[in-house]
């Protein structure tokens, strides 16, 4: 099985690549859709919603990924890479998200960024029990496609799944043994 990590423009993909390497999973890093030769695509993201979303639009990722998902191929979004799959975010209201899930992300109240470990309550069977490492100031409150929920100021949606598309607000690549199990499930 071929795995590729989409370089999201800003930030780096080192941590995710290192986590896949620890699982013995080879991968390539792709910057444009033309470079993709894989069965599973990871979309990590750090920093601002608008920066990552704009980069993906500019590089032609939106139509490519829409088609990718229509073919039932696996896409895994992580952190801002999850957020950009929605329609938009309060962080950068002028930049649209890719729109594969409905909803607009909202800012957390209380101490931000939310930084650290929190329990993920899975809404489906088969996922490992435990806590993930979160670093984010914006969240999706609820989604018809919620796969996991987590408490902060209030409950938010910490994982979503729609058919072949999976996404996590926490960082499985930085979430110890729990995270490694989550990544393995994504590669199944």
């Amino acid at each position, binding site marked *: 099985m071929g795995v590729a990590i989409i370089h999201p423009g800003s930030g*780096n993909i080192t941590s995710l690549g290192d986590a896949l390497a620890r699982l013995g999973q080879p991968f390539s890093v792709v910057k444009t859709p033309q470079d993709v030769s894989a069965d599973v695509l990871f979309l990590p993201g*750090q920093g601002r919603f608008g920066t990552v979303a704009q980069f993906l639009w500019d590089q032609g990722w939106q139509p490519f990924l829409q088609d990718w998902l229509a073919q039932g191929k696996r896409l895994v979004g992580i952190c801002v890479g999850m957020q950009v799959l929605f329609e938009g975010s309060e962080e950068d209201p002028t930049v649209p998200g890719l729109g594969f899930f409905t909803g607009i992300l909202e800012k957390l109240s209380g101490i931000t960024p939310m930084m*650290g*470990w929190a329990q993920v309550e899975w809404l489906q069977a088969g996922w490992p029990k435990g806590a993930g490492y979160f670093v984010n100031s914006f969240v999706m409150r609820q989604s018809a496609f919620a796969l996991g929920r987590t*408490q902060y100021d209030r409950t938010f949606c910490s994982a979503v799944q729609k058919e072949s598309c999976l996404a996590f607000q926490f960082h499985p690549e*930085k979430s110890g043994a729990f995270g490694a199990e989550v990544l393995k499930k994504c590669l199944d």
Partner: protein
Amino acid sequence: MSGLMKRIIPCLDVNNGRVVKGIHFEGLRDMGDPVELALRYQDQGADELVFLDITATVDARPTALAMVRRVSQALSIPFTLGGGLRSVSDISDFLEAGADKVCFNSAALADPSLLNRASQHFGSQCIVVAMDVKRDGEIYRVYSHGGKKGTERQALAWAIEVADRGAGEILLTSIDRDGTGLGYDLSVLQSVTKRLRVPVIASGGAQSAEHLAEGLAHGASAVLAATMFHSGAYTIQSVKQHLAQAGIPVRLETLPC
């Protein structure tokens, strides 16, 4: 109630790619390989690690980057690197090598606008500011250059400024308490955590699980300690069990990796 758990963070001082004991440049004792020690703490249940590179020489950059690369390959929990970062391109190098966050101290005091540039470029989530503070009569003064040089800045005002400029986290170290084992300076900790909306890591002086609990009770999102873990007096597991019994939410389950 927030589901976020309180973080326990061992701090590793690094010199020329090796973990050393002691924060002063004289009489450094070799404590071992950073990756081996980092994995030991990860297995004990550490929530994050902080590496402070105290290498004095200016040409130490390749050694530090190689260490960060090795740590990132091995470790599956987040880690922060501090020491000697001066510019946006320095940050980029260390993040690319695999550091999750970078930490500024003297460089931010010398040029606070670096924090604005850094957070705009990389996001606040990876920009930590370390503040070394010392009581001076009625005020807490901020020190630079590893606690050697007093500045005109006061702790609370500087903390507010760095958060406004985009720091996503503050590592607050009491110079008075560091190395004493008397516990954190709770007074300056509380004054900062009461006013700030970014997470604050308490540092300097902890030598027992009770000290960690006090820091967390005074608003810290995370507590940092070195000697109490390095000496073997406490494991991360043992302090977490103590904190859990005291009703403090900590991450206990650690499956073997």
